[in-house]
């Protein structure tokens, strides 16, 4: 790679070469049967070069030396056509990386047969649970990724790792009632997926859904489950932590560092080295060392995250949050593994303490939330009615409001957390909110 950097320096003031190699194996399930088994392999090389503050990027599906040389020339052509970016400072310098986490290499060469067997077992277990169950959808697989980031300032970091996942979506049919599709999943760094637990949990939710209950238009206690929580916050709140929005004055958190913005029960941080993380990266996509970045601590907003470019424009340093879009080659600001700190109560206690309220498993339309002001209007579906401390049946309702008001309405957080492989990964507990305005159906 040294030779290629030297070659690139003939054209550019600075350059970066990033090579990504992925191997995905998996099977998918359709209608109680294993459908397609697949192996997908891809190598992508991204060249980012800068000359006279002009940036040029090129991407190829190869890591062949001669092809990379051609890609460097292509990036140069692009840079010459681009206008200078007067804000550009420089690519990152080498940093001090943490010791990489020990990784399980079993996912590197796992055969799809492994997942065929896993899927077959899960289908059998699910169908034995209830005659009305249909396994509508499912997927099981593993991904192994290798990345190498080098630049002309001496950054040179190689990382490898992978993980496995399994998800199952069930539909229940009982008399004339057909439940909505309800899913559960597991994701781990190794192959130790808990299929029985996945089946158990999804079966419980489908059985709850056999009984359909009406929801009212009211203010009520609402427990939001991990999948729903991660999807809503990913669209309505997390974008506000981006440093780019500070510069553009498009974050509602502008000038709010060290101010209380949420219930003191809420602590959120981005930490790729958290014990449940599916992405224990030591460097981001620009080769900057990653670290734990606290976003909200006991309700107090602690600060923004930055990549190399926006950090330098602002006069601060990258927090190791540069994430590359492999379709376009552009580097934005993103997260590796957001963690919402767990609370003290068990989920079962949270449910049993509610006289009248709701448990939300999923939100429809979280992606229609407005990241610029935190407004959201989503449909809680699947959701469940809780009466006298017990789940009575499934229901559907609309929940609309503002995420900055919502995070002040937290009254309890569960001690259980779940890993959600969504926008990187999010590790979140069940969060209980009070006085939530809902529109029933």
């Amino acid at each position, binding site marked *: 790679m040294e030779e290629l950097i030297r070659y690139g320096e003939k054209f550019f003031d600075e350059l970066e070469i990033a090579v990504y190699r992925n191997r995905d194996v998996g*099977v998918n399930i359709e*209608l109680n*049967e*294993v459908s*397609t*088994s*697949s*192996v*997908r*392999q*891809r*190598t992508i090389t991204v060249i980012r070069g800068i000359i006279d503050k002009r*940036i040029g*990027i*090129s*991407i190829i*599906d*190869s890591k062949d030396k001669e092809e990379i040389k051609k*890609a460097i020339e*292509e*990036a140069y*052509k*692009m840079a010459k*056509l*681009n*206008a200078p970016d007067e*804000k550009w400072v420089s690519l990152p310098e080498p940093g001090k990386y943490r010791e990489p986490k020990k990784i399980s290499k079993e996912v590197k060469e796992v*055969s*799809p*047969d492994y997942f*065929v067997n896993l*899927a077959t077992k899960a289908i059998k277990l699910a169908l034995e649970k209830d005659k009305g169950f249909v396994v*509508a959808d499912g997927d099981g697989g593993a991904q192994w990724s290798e990345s190498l980031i080098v630049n002309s300032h001496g950054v040179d970091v190689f990382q490898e790792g992978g993980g496995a996942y399994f998800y199952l979506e069930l*539909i229940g049919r009982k008399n004339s009632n057909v439940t*909505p*599709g309800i899913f559960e999943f597991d994701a781990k760094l190794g192959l130790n997926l808990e299929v029985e637990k996945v089946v158990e949990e999804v079966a419980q939710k489908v059985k709850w859904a056999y009984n359909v209950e009406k929801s009212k238009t009211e203010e009520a206690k609402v427990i939001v489950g991990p999948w729903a929580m991660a999807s809503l916050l990913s669209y309505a709140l997390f974008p506000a932590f981006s440093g780019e929005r500070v510069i*553009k*004055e*498009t974050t*509602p958190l502008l000038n709010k560092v060290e101010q209380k913005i949420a219930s003191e029960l809420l602590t959120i941080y981005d930490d790729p080295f958290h014990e449940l993380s599916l992405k224990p990266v030591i460097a981001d996509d620009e080769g900057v060392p990653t670290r734990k970045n606290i976003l909200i601590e006991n309700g107090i907003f602690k600060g923004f995250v930055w990549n190399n470019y926006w950090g330098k424009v602002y006069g601060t340093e990258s927090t190791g949050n540069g994430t590359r879009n492999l*379709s*376009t*080659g*552009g580097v934005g600001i993103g997260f590796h593994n957001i963690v919402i700190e767990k609370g003290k109560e068990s989920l079962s206690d949270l449910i049993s303490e509610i006289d009248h309220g709701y448990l939300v498993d999923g939100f*429809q*339309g979280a*992606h*229609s939330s*407005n990241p*610029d*002001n935190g*407004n959201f*209007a*989503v*449909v809680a*579906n699947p959701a469940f009615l809780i009466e006298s401390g017990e789940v009575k049946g499934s229901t559907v309702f*609309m929940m*609309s409001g503002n995420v900055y008001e919502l995070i002040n309405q937290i009254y309890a957080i569960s001690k259980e957390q779940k890993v959600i492989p969504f926008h990187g990964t999010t590790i979140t507990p069940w969060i209980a909110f009070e006085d939530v305005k809902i*529109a029933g*159906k």
Partner: protein
Amino acid sequence: MQDVLEKALEWAMNNLKAEYMELRYENLKKTNLELKDGTFVTFTGKIQRGVAIRVLADGAWGFSSTNRLENLEKAIEEAYKLAKAGAKAKREKIQLAEIKPIEDIVKSKMKIKPVEVNIDDKIGHLRELEKLLKEDKVVKSTMIRYEDASGEKILLTNEGTKIKWDVNYLVQYIWTTGKEGDKLAASRDSIGQVDYGWEIFETKETNEVVAQRVLKKLHAQLNGVAPKRGEFPIVAGPIIVGIIAHEALGHLAEADLTINSPFKDLMGKQIAPEFVTMSERIVDGGFGNDKYDDEGVPVKDIHIIENGILKELMVNREYAHKWGIEPNGHARAQDYTFPPIIRMRNTVFEPGDWSFEEMIEDIKFGYYVVDFRGGQAQLNSAFQVGVQEGYMIENGEITKPIRDTSISGIAIEALKKITAVGKDFGIETGFCGKGQTAFVSSGGPHMRFDGGIIIG
């Protein structure tokens, strides 16, 4: 390249015992530009090249994809072995509906292909668009993303299909943030074309037209009031009608999903008033237009709902065999790293005979919803659509704009509440995610729903 593929396929036909084998090669040259507040943060040339291999052996599918073109035989063998491994767990063997093998070259309909446009012109176009947006003082931040591609796709099967496409597309996406006082609001816009080339920016979608559309939505959001929550008469414009057609009804008519949806028991039944027809068809400017699908099946127009009756489904060859119907060209793959699955193309309600004025004149209080930001549906047709442009209807007139809200309902219930179908027609182009991304359009005329849709 076709020679290399043919040679590899011939080797596979001589050495592997499979019912069906398919090689899909793709070689695209792409340009990606992203202009953010005066700076091109992405300025990228990209070459995407690789082969997708799908094998049906012993009634099960195996799929592999690779960009190592020097050893295709190995990748075909891998897909074959995967199919064999999956077959062991299969109770019902997959079979494919018969088709006539096709040899064809699909030419582009574009007048000006993106590859023929000088990059300076692309830069100039985006800068001008940004300037027009920023002339409005409320605009705080703009992001304009542009992508185009030109290249070839080749499909070869062991049944004799040989199709070569001249692939071209272009996409423009805008996200604008506005601020007035303490209020922040956002507006988005997207254009995607496979049949019209660069000429689209010189005719239908000039920078002036696009900027005006984006700013109108932004001001409506900034000046909007929160709507009342509840069920009111709703008049939906073509874009909202389209997203309901796509999300809440279209997905239920994708045969792989139909079996678990209410559509399964409603085939051949009246599910909407007789003046309602919803199609999956080629439309002018449709982002989902194509001559053949990724199994080499000619794309056919179908009526999902015809005069209120649920009639036809979208299928691939596997589901065409399962349902005993003709394949209709809906097997699509995002790119060479994915196998084809059943996808929509252009999902539209067909026009009726109402004018917009007639539709709203007797509404004392209701809402007119024009454009969305995100939509999602469940297989029971429960849908949610975020509204980014909408207005109140008071005493038969359009009055104040509304902000950051959504509409929701159960589409198969809402269909029964349609009371008027407009004589106009419009579409929006965009992307659909179903594990893979597909280029799609959706649309229709203005339509009125008297109940069945909740706002707020």
